[in-house]
C-alpha cells in the first residue's frame, strides 16, 4: 500500500497512466457550459472556430514531440484504431502491389488481429520470431521480404517486455524494397526520443493514455513526402482529411496535445529518474535465486522491468501481491489465463512465461514505492516457494525436465 493514499502502489503504467494534472487543467477549458464547447466541424460560428483552433494547436504539439508536420497527424479514438487504420487501410489501398504483410509475433493484439483479419480476406502474413532478447534480427526480416510485400508492421517498444526495436534500420530495409513501414509507437512516444522527419517510417500509431493523456484518444502519423495513401476505415463527414470521420472530441484532443507537449519538455529528466528506479528495483531483486529478466536489459524503455520468478505461479504471485497494482502482461489479454504469447515467442518455456510479472513505473512512482515493492515481492516469492513441491525438488537438485508426470 501507498502510505499516503492507502491504495495499492500503482506499477502498471504500461496498461494506462493517470492523467497529468496539467493535462486535466487544459481539458477543463473545453468542458462545461462556461467552456469552449463548439463542434470543431461547425463552420458558421466562433464556437466552432475556437474549438477548431484548439484542435490544430494540439495537432502541433503532437507533431512536435515526434518531429512530424502537423498535417501528418490524423486523430483517432486510440492506438487500437490507429493500428487498424494503418494496417487495413494501407493493405487495402495498395492491394494492387501485393497481398503480403510482415509483422512480428510479439506485436500488440491490435496489430496481430488486424493482420488476422487481412488473412481472412485473402492476404498472406509472415509472423517473424524475435530473438531470445525480444529484438528482431534484421537479416531474418530482409529474408522474409518478397516482391509482393506491401507492408511491414513492427512495434517500437514492446508493451510487455519493454524492448526497443531499431526502427531506423528496419525502416531503411523497407525503403530499399519500397515497402510501407508501420510502427506501433503507443509505448514509445514520449519515452524514446524520435524524429520522424528523418526516420524512414511511413505510418506510426500513438496513444494518449499511455503518456498521461486521456483515454479514448490516439493518432496516426501518415507521412506526406513521399505520400502514403490509406483507405479510410470510418466513413461519414470526411473529418481528418477524409482519413477518419466522426466528431472530434475537442477536450480529449487538447488533452493529448498537452500530454505530448509536457512529454517533450520532461522526457530527458524523466527517463533518467525512471532508469534509476528500475535499477533500484532490479538491484533489490537480482540476488534472489531463479529470477530472470525478460527481454534485452539495455535496449529497453526506461520504466519497464519484466521478471520471471521461476517455480512461482504468476497468478498466485499477483494474488499474493494485492498491495501492488501490477500485471503479468498486457491488460488487453489479462482476463485470459494463457501464458503470455510475447514470452512464448521469446522461447521461454511455459513455466517461466507463467511466472512473469511486468513492473511498469512512471511519473508518480517514488523510490519509496520501489523500496516497499521489493519488500513485498521478496516475501511473497519466498512464501510461495516454501509451499511449492517443485521448489523443493529444485532445491534437492532434481531436474524437473527429466520427470515424467503421470496422467490422472
Amino acid at each position: 500500500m501507498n502510505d499516503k493514499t492507502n491504495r495499492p502502489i500503482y506499477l502498471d503504467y504500461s496498461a494506462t497512466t493517470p492523467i497529468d494534472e496539467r493535462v486535466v487543467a487544459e481539458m477543463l477549458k473545453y468542458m462545461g457550459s462556461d467552456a469552449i464547447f463548439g463542434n470543431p466541424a461547425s463552420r458558421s460560428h466562433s464556437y466552432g472556430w475556437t474549438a477548431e483552433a484548439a484542435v490544430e494547436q494540439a495537432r502541433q504539439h503532437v507533431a512536435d514531440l515526434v518531429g512530424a508536420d502537423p498535417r501528418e497527424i490524423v486523430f483517432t479514438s486510440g492506438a487500437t484504431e490507429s493500428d487498424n487504420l494503418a494496417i487495413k487501410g494501407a493493405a487495402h489501398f495498395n492491394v494492387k502491389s501485393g497481398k503480403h504483410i510482415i509483422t512480428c509475433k510479439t506485436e500488440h493484439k491490435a496489430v496481430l488481429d488486424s493482420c488476422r483479419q487481412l488473412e481472412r480476406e485473402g492476404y498472406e502474413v509472415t509472423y517473424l520470431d524475435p530473438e531470445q532478447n525480444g529484438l528482431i534480427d534484421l537479416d531474418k526480416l530482409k529474408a522474409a521480404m518478397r516482391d509482393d510485400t506491401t507492408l511491414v508492421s513492427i512495434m517500437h517498444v514492446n508493451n510487455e517486455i519493454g524492448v526497443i526495436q531499431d526502427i531506423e534500420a528496419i525502416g531503411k530495409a523497407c525503403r530499399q524494397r519500397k515497402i510501407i513501414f508501420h510502427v506501433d509507437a503507443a509505448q514509445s512516444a514520449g519515452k524514446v526520443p524520435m524524429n520522424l522527419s528523418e526516420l524512414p517510417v511511413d505510418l506510426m500509431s500513438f496513444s494518449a493514455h499511455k503518456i498521461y493523456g486521456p483515454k479514448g484518444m490516439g493518432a496516426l502519423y501518415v507521412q506526406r513526402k513521399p505520400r502514403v495513401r490509406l483507405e479510410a476505415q470510418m466513413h461519414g463527414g470526411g473529418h481528418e482529411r477524409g482519413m477518419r470521420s466522426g466528431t472530434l472530441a475537442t477536450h480529449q484532443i487538447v488533452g493529448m496535445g498537452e500530454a505530448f507537449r509536457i512529454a517533450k519538455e520532461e522526457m530527458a529528466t524523466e527517463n533518467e529518474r525512471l532508469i534509476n528506479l528500475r535499477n533500484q528495483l532490479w538491484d533489490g531483486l537480482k540476488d534472489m535465486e531463479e529470477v530472470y529478466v525478460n527481454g534485452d536489459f539495455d535496449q529497453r524503455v526506461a520504466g519497464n522491468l519484466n521478471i520471471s520468478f521461476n517455480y512461482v505461479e504468476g497468478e498466485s504471485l499477483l494474488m499474493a501481491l494485492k498491495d501492488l497494482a501490477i500485471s503479468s502482461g498486457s491488460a488487453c489479454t489479462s482476463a485470459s489465463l494463457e501464458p503470455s504469447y510475447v514470452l512464448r515467442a521469446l522461447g521461454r518455456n511455459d513455466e517461466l512465461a507463467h511466472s512473469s510479472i511486468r513492473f511498469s513505473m512512471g511519473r508518480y512512482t517514488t523510490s519509496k514505492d520501489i523500496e516497499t515493492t521489493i519488500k513485498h515481492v521478496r516475501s511473497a516469492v519466498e512464501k510461495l516457494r516454501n509451499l511449492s513441491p517443485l521448489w523443493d525438488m529444485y532445491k534437492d537438485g532434481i531436474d524437473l525436465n527429466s520427470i515424467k508426470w503421470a496422467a490422472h
Partner: protein
Amino acid sequence: MAVYFDHNATTPLHEKIFEAMQPYMGSVCGNPSSLHRFGRLQRQAIEQAREQVAALMGAQSSQVIFTSGGTEANNLMVKGLSMDTAVQRIAVSAIEHMSLLQPAAEVGCNVDQIAVDGQGLVTQESLKQAINKETVLVSVMAANNETGAVQDINKLAEEVRAHDIWFHTDASQIAGKLEFSFEKTAVHAMTLSSHKLYGPMGAGALIVDKCLPMHSLLQGGSQEKGLRAGTENVPAIVGFGMAAELAAQELIERADHVRVLRDALEKELMQLGVVKVFSQQVRRLPNTLQFGVQGFDGETLLMELDRRGFAVSSGSACTSGKTEPSHVLKAMAVPNQLATSAIRVSLGRANTMAEIERFIEAMKQIIGLSNSAVMMAANL
C-alpha cells in the same frame, strides 16, 4: 460569446455530468481490463454507465455496445453486419446523416434509397418500394438532425419486421429530447451519441439485439463483447451514462422549455412573410427549427447572424463548409434556391426567451436592411 443556437451540432457539457466524470480524469485511474483494484473500479464504472444508457432507451444493458461516438456506431451497424454482399442489399432513407450514408456506400453491397415526402417523412409506401427479398437491413433515422422531423418508427419497424428484415434507427438526435424506446419501437439496433445530450464528446453506443449477426470493425481486444476493440474511454463513458440518467429525469421539463421558445420563434418568423419552415406540417423535435428565407443566400444570413452574436448553422455541422444545398432538403424536393437559404436553429436547456426575442429582432433587421436596399435600388 455569442448566443448558442446550435445544439444539434453539439451541446455544452452539463455541470453534473462534468462532476461525475472528474474523478475518472484524476485520482481514479487504471485500465478497465486490468485485474487489479484500479482496473476493477474502472470496469464497474463502465457497467454502471451501461445500465444508465439502457434505462434511458428502454433497452437491456447487455445490448449496449459503447463506441467512440455516433459515427462509429453507424459505421459498426452498416459495415459490421455480417452479410453476403454479393446477393444482399440494404435500404436507407435519403435523409440519413453522412455517417450512415457513406459507410453504406462503402460496404460493397447494393444500397437502395428510401424516398421521403415533402415534409421529410418516410411513408409506408416508399418503404415498401425500396425493399425486396434481398434486403437484409433497413435504416431510417428517428429524428432528422436538420429539420427535426420525427419518423413514425413504430409503424416502419412493424413493416420491416413483417418482411424479416433487420431494422436500425439512428436515434442520436431524438435521445434525450423526446421519449423513445428501443423495446417499444421494436427496432433491432439503435445509434446514440453522448455529446448530443449534454454528455462529453468521444462516446456513443450501438444498442443491438443479440440476434443480429455482428462482427467488430476494430481488431485487437475483446472489449465490448468482442464488438469494439480498444481500451474503453472511461471518463467519456461515465459522462455518457450520467447524461442518459439526467436526460431521463429531465426529459419532459427540457422538451417543454425548448418547445415554448421554438414555437414563439416560429410564430414571429412566419410573420416576416419571406420565411418558409421546413417539415412544418409534421411532428418535429421540440428544439429544432429549420427555415429558408426567400430571396436570401444562406451564407450571407449566417454571416449576418454571426455578426449580431448568434451561433446557428445551415444544417449538419459535419457537412458545413460546403456550399451545396443539403441532401436532406433536396430529398424533400425543396427548390434549390430556398434550400441554399436554410438556417437551422437548434435550442437547448440554457436558452431563454430574451435570446429568442433578440434573435427575432436581428432577423427583422437583416431582412429589413436588405428589403430597403432592394427598394432603394428600385427607386433609383
